[in-house]
Every structure is written in C-alpha cells, then in structure tokens.
C-alpha cells in the first residue's frame, strides 16, 4: 500500500521533464521530492495528482491504478505554492468546498470544517475572506481545504516557497507536527535541502528528470550516491582526490602523518560562531574550504599566510573527484 510510479516519462516538445521514473513512496510517511528548479519534481507531483498526464508509464495509488483517472476521482489533496485559495469564498466556505461537492449532510460539513480550522489554528478567521489573511494563514487554509476530503494522499507543491524565511520555518515545524498527528501519506516538493532534511522521513532527489537517490535524510547526507547529491545537500569542497564537507576537514598547524596535504591560508572570514578559511593547497587548482569553530580557530592562532596541514576527519563523507567535475 503506497504510491507506485513505474516507467513514467514526460516531455514538452524537446524538453524532457521526466525520464523513466520508477519509485515507490511509502504509506503514512512524509516524503520530500528534492531537487533544483526545473528538474521535474513538480511535474512528477502533478502527474501523481492527475493535474497532468504522463506520456507513458503508470501511477498506482494505494493499490489502485490511477494512471487514467481524472483528478476528481483520485482522492488526493493538493496544495499549491501560491495557495490557490478561492478568493470569493470565506475561509470556512473554502474548507467546506470539497465536502459540499461530495454532498455531505450540512451538519457533518459544519463539524468537519470547525474541526479542521481548529487544527490549522484559523477558527477565529472562519468568516473572513482569504484576502484578509497573511501568506502563512492562506497556506494553512489551503492545507485544511485539502485535508477536508480525507484524501488518501496529500501532495504539496513548494508549499512554503512563497513565504518569507521566518514564516517558512514556523510552518515547516508545524507541518511536521501536523503529520505526526494526522498520519496521511504526504509528498511535498521543495528545492530547499534544509527543509527536506528537517521535515521529511524520506527524500527523493530529482535532477534533470531523473532520480539521483532515494533515502532517509541521514542516508542521503552521510552516504550520498554521487557528486550531485552530495553537492545539493550541503556545502562541498575539495581536498586532494576527494570531495567532502568543509567541516569534515581536520586542520593542524604542524606537519603530521603521511597523506596529509599542506597549504597556506589565503582568506579568513568570521561568520557568527564559525570561522571559514580558504586554504591554497599545493598541487590543487581550487582552494580548499575549511570551517572551524571560533574557539578552535583562536586556539590555533590562525591568520592569513599561516601554513597549515589538512586531512579528512575519521569517518568523513567523501566522494572521489570526477575528472570532468574538477576541471
């Protein structure tokens, strides 16, 4: 019982949006489709919702072949980046819409709407128009509206993309808590790796129409399948033949064991509690980036021009540099 996507292709003219996608999204989990803009993740989500049809391949939702089903029959909830609230209806009417379409008894609709508005903390705004709500409130309204019809699957397309950073962070935490309460299978699209790492149970990384890797946040971060996934999930630098994260480089001011590379500090920048160093490593085109805590850096008495020795920390995540990538 899950969402099963098999052999899905989609192109617009010459542009290939999705290239033979096969993936299974588990029931009851919060899954993120993560990737850069234009990589095909929104298209995949819209194909799951039936808002768009695939050129080939099949979509199965909770054991039912939904490939040919129109969006009305899929029983999915869809939340749009720009909310897509019905501007001419009150908040309560918006939430009630799907239930009224299904001709549920009035009393039932009323209770259900009240319940959902309570859930998204919009009870006191029930009789306002969406234009009187803030962006974050509109997005919660859109969420309540989608949940009202008790969908098998909840799909969110860049749900927090149009909100400012602070509200985005709040809503992100709130979505995670909501999911723990409601437990509906949820898939959301995002291009923000922090958002995906923080909220999702499972992440599907999509780039240029292909799936790069599927896994839990930890798996992705610690065992990236390739250069792209590693680079997309966090900052990456180069040290000798490897790419690795800047905080996974150990720095000392004395020469050490064999395999240690030496270099000279080129630039030093303090950002809040950390210090970021660019080290010109001998025999390496690009400088290596090292991140240290401020206390550590002060203890080592580092400044521009200091000679240092670098090596990966034990257990550091690294991938070999591809010749093409290092050019």
């Amino acid at each position, binding site marked *: 019982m899950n969402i099963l996507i098999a052999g899905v292709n989609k192109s617009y003219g010459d542009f290939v949006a999705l290239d033979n996608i096969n993936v299974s999204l588990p029931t009851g989990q919060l899954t993120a489709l993560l990737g850069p803009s234009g990589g095909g993740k929104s298209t995949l989500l819209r194909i799951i919702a039936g*808002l768009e049809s695939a050129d080939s391949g099949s979509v199965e939702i909770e054991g039912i072949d939904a490939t040919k089903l129109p969006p009305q029959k899929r029983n999915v909830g*869809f939340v*749009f980046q720009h*909310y897509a609230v*019905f501007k*001419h209806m009150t908040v309560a009417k918006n939430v009630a819409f799907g239930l009224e*379409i*299904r001709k549920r008894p009035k009393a039932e609709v009323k209770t259900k709407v009240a319940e959902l508005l309570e859930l998204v903390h919009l009870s006191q705004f029930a009789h306002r128009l969406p234009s009187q709500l803030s962006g974050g409130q509109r997005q919660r309204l859109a969420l309540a*509206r989608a949940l009202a019809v008790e969908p098998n699957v909840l799909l969110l397309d860049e749900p927090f993309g149009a909100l400012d950073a602070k509200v985005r962070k709040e809503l992100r935490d709130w979505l995670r808590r909501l999911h723990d309460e409601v437990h509906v299978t949820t898939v959301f699209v995002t291009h923000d790796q922090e958002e995906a790492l923080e909220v999702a149970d499972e992440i599907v990384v999509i780039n240029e129409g292909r799936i790069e890797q599927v896994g839990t946040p930890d798996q992705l971060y610690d065992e990236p399948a390739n250069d792209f996934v590693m680079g997309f999930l966090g900052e990456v630098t180069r040290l000798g033949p490897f790419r690795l994260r800047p905080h996974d480089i150990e720095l000392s001011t004395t020469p050490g064991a064999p395999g240690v590379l030496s270099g000279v500090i080129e630039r030093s920048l303090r950002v809040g509690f950390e210090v970021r160093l660019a080290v010109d490593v001998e025999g390496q085109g690009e400088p290596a980036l090292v991140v240290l805590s401020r206390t550590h850096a002060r203890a080592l008495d580092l400044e521009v021009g200091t000679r240092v020795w670098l090596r990966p920390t034990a257990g550091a995540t690294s991938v070999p540099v591809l010749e093409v990538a290092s050019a």
Partner: protein
Amino acid sequence: MAETSIRSRKGPVTYLLRIFVITYLAVLVIWPLWEVGQQTFFPPDRGAGGGFGAFVERLSDPSVSYAFNLTATVAFWSVVINTVFGVGISLLIVRYRFPGRRILSVLVDLPMSVSPVVVGLALVLAYSTGQGWFGSALASVGFYIIGTTPGLIMATAFVSLPLVIREVVPVLEEIGTDAELAASSLGATGWQTFRRITLPSIKWAVVYGVVLSMARSLGEFGAVKIVSPGAEFRGETATLLIQNRYTNYQEPTAYAAAFVLVLASVLALVVVSLIRKEDHV
C-alpha cells in the same frame, strides 16, 4: 502616485495647454451635446411644442415605440448570444490547446475593425434570398434572414461580438488555473468548477462586457441599415428611425429618440466606471 516637484511645477505652458484642451473638448463635444438637449426640449420654430410633455408625446407615437421595442429585442438577443458565445470561446482560447487556436484568437477580434457597412453587405451577400450564397437554400426551408428580425440580430451580434471576449480573456489569463485545478482535485466536475470557481472570478468582466455589448447593440446603425427594410413598423430600429425622421423633416422626433439614446450611452459610461471601481476593490 505622488507628484514630484518637477512634475507639479506649473508654467505658462501648463495653463495654455489646459485652456486649449478645455476649449477643444467644449467645442467638439460638450456644446453640441448641450444643443441636442436644446433641440429636444425647445425645438426652434415650425410650431413644434417644447418641454418635457412634448418630448414624451413624441416618444409615445406608435411607430417610435415600435422602433424602441425592436431595438430592445434585437439588442437583448444579440447580447445573450454574444455573452454565451463570448464566455465559451474565451475559455476555449485561454484554457485549451487545439490546432488553429492562435488564429482563432486573432479572428474573433476582427468584427470590431470591419466597417458596419461591410458587415451588412457581407450578410446580404451570404444570406439574402435573391443574391446570397445560402439565401435560396435557406428560403427553400422557409427561413429568411435578410429583412427579418433574425437578420437584425445577426448584424448586431456581428459588430459587438468581440466585446465580451476582450474583457473575459485577460481576466482568465490573469487568474490562472490553480484555483480550478484545486477544485478538480477536491472532486469538482468540470461544470461545478466553472460555476463555482471560474464564473465568480470572471463575473465582473462578464458584466462589463455585457454592458459594453448592450450599449453597442442599442446604437448599431450601419450594419442594421443594410440588412433591414427600414420602413415604419417594418424593421425600423431606433437608429434607423432617427435617420428617417431627420431626413423627412421631423427633426423634433429624431431629436427626442436621439436624446434617449444619448442618455442610454451616458448611463452605460457611468455603469462601466462604477464596475471598474468595484473590480478594483
């Protein structure tokens, strides 16, 4: 917009231009309009009565009421047809993909640019019983277009065809498809989505287009002139009546009818400006 110091500085040129524009509009538009009122309520000489009573009396002449009734009927049907057609074709052009869509969107704009005389001529050449391409075929099934009320409706519908479309298309494009898609993912059928989501969003644009079509339909002259027999009690619409009476030295009646149409146009202008305001709230 806040006026900047550069823009708000007034020199002699400002006043010169202001006086020029006021004079120009006064002489070209305002004064003649004032004179229409004068001619309507205080007709010069010829023993014609003046005042409001005489005005009403001229309008209550049976041939005049016939003309206004006919104009109302024709305008009503052409507006109904154009509204249904206009909303439908706007949806198709904006929301759907089909071959020839671009060409169609340009072609639906054409009727406004065609001279009304050409419109009348075109309908005659296509549908008149004597010379039209399809006239004889239609006549053989007992259907006549030229010289009848359906012909007047067609001529009027032709010239006002793009008005609803022009208002609805930009609004449809602006509102986008998100709300409609959201409705369908919530289980609404196509018709439910249209009635409950799309229609409320384009409501004011439709009303606006209807008012414009109505104004245009009430006042259509050229196309109607050609497809109508144009005789008293026989296809004589209000605009044709004005021409006929004026050329038959019954100016007071012509002016009375014209005054009514002037009022209708000004009313349309007022309604339109009110709708614009409503729309922007």
